[in-house]
């Protein structure tokens, strides 16, 4: 050790005042300042005003138009604590802007959306899922078609997160359903630049673009839930993302058998104006538990239902061909077009509460394939 090292070091935070000065009586000065060298004697940190930040973010086109929770470092860190990744890890590059979806950017948008920190891993998997080539986010984000991203959660995690799979599962009223769907949209707006008129050219937009997330009502389903159908174990947790239109109701109170009920569903699905009519693709069918029971009582398996819907959801080709791209001859049979390419395209889930309604949601057509990914529930041990 050299002598120099022994020199008195002044702390960088020190104001330089001597303790004697600070303690000395200063009756003549007439103030109660501790130290005159600094502009304050004590500093308190407060959260920014949510209304002000919301307004500021809205002006900067960083929101969906609704108020947001200010994404402070402290809040974001709480989300990062639930991630197995490092904050700067890039989980996806989102078109059209090709923005890097880092774990931290996802967390920031999740905070804004009103998520709980526990939702972070779900959002991370969703981002990874929509980044898959076959999902075609470039097309889904930019299209004039009102396609949104529907997220379906399967497995025990849905309950753990407090998700709604029963009455009102498509909203409103549940924090997890609402804020996860919203966070995904905010990620698309801020990371992918899917802003109306800039990176999102949907002619009218869609209410489904605010949020579109629910859990499958596995307990009340007579069939294998979606994730099991797709090869996962019952106690696995998964997210499934589908490019889908806002849901459309199928009201059927009177059918007593499977065929009658399914006919109502098929008739509702086979419409000329959807993308499936000229570029056949996936169709999301959200069957209510009561409808499911009606079908099940005749012993129809999930495959039977999917087969039936595929075979019977068709419309005159001449009507289907009025869509965007030319209807490919290969989808036409005897002057009719099947709106799904195969029974597999019928994505069948059970959700909702009591009541005799089913929901259908047309996909983006052959331009996007749904993606299911498992959730890794393990939490990173952070000190």
């Amino acid at each position, binding site marked *: 050790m050299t002598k120099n090292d022994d020199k008195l070091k002044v702390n960088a935070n020190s104001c330089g005042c001597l303790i004697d000065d600070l303690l000395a009586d200063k009756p003549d000065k007439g103030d*109660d*300042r501790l130290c005159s060298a600094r*502009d*304050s*004697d*004590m*500093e*308190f*940190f*407060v*959260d*920014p*005003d949510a209304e002000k*930040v919301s307004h500021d*973010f809205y002006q900067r086109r*960083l929101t969906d138009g609704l108020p947001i929770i200010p*994404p*402070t*470092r*402290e809040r*974001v860190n709480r989300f990062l604590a639930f991630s197995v990744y490092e904050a700067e890890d890039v989980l996806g590059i*989102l*078109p*059209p*802007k*090709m*923005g*890097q979806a*880092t774990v*931290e*950017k996802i967390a*920031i*948008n999740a905070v*804004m959306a009103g998520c709980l920190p526990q939702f972070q891993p779900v959002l991370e998997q969703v981002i990874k899922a929509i980044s898959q080539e076959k999902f*075609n986010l*470039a*097309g*889904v*984000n*930019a*299209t*004039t*078609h009102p396609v949104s991203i529907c997220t379906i959660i399967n497995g025990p995690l849905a309950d753990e997160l407090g998700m709604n799979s029963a009455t009102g599962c498509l909203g409103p009223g549940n924090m997890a359903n609402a804020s996860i769907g919203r966070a995904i949209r905010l990620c698309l707006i*801020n*990371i*992918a*630049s899917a802003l109306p008129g*800039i*990176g*999102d*050219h*949907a002619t009218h937009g869609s209410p489904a673009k605010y949020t579109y997330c629910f859990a499958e009502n596995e307990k009340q389903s007579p069939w294998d839930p979606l994730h099991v159908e797709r090869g996962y174990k019952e106690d696995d947790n998964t997210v499934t993302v589908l490019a889908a239109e806002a849901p459309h109701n199928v009201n059927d109170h009177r059918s007593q058998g499977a065929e009658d009920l399914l006919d109502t569903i098929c008739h509702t699905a086979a419409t000329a104006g959807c993308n499936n009519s000229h*570029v056949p693709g996936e169709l999301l069918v959200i069957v209510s538990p009561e409808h499911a029971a009606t079908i099940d009582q005749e012993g129809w398996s999930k495959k039977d239902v999917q087969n039936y819907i595929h075979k019977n959801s068709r419309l005159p080709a001449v009507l289907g061909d009025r869509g*965007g*791209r030319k209807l490919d001859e290969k989808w036409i049979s005897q002057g009719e077009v099947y709106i799904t390419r195969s029974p597999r395209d019928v994505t069948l889930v059970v959700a909702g509460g009591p009541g005799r309604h089913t929901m259908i949601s047309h996909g*983006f*057509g*052959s*331009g*996007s394939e749904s993606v299911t990914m498992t959730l890794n529930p393990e939490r990173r041990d952070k000190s």
Partner: protein
Amino acid sequence: MRVKLTEREVLNPVGEVQEKKIKLIPLPYDFDKVSLVDNTKPGADIILKVLSESLGNREHLWVQKPAGAPATKQQIQEAASSDLAILALGDCGSCTSWVVLDAIRLEKCGTPTISVCSDHFAPFARELADSHGLKSLRILEVEHPIAGLSDEKIEEKAGKIVGNLLYLLQIP
């Protein structure tokens, strides 16, 4: 005592973009064969027909590709077999995206491209090309809208951009 209240800072939710640049393949001095990449949007075939007819005695290779989704590898390979590829039509969000992104795929294969987009979607097409590192992607603008018009009207609109195509290609 003087107490200072400091508002915590908020973090920026906007995703960053990584800079990367792709080389634009120069247009050929002369060419014998041109790929006409038709995404089957209404009018795309008419526009490509009008444009190709202005190119004189050259071989035309028609390739069809999906509108709102990427061309298959085989379609790209086919389109890349010519000296030049002209793609049409970007007149909505997803089809513009995939005209531009497929054009970039072709450029990466070494095939120079010219993409036809409607003037309404051309700014988006340029932004998108820029985000993918190819700011100078050649985009020919045709007057929006195209879909829903009669064939004659589309031919008329296509006719108006023939001069620009010939100028781009330096065809006298």
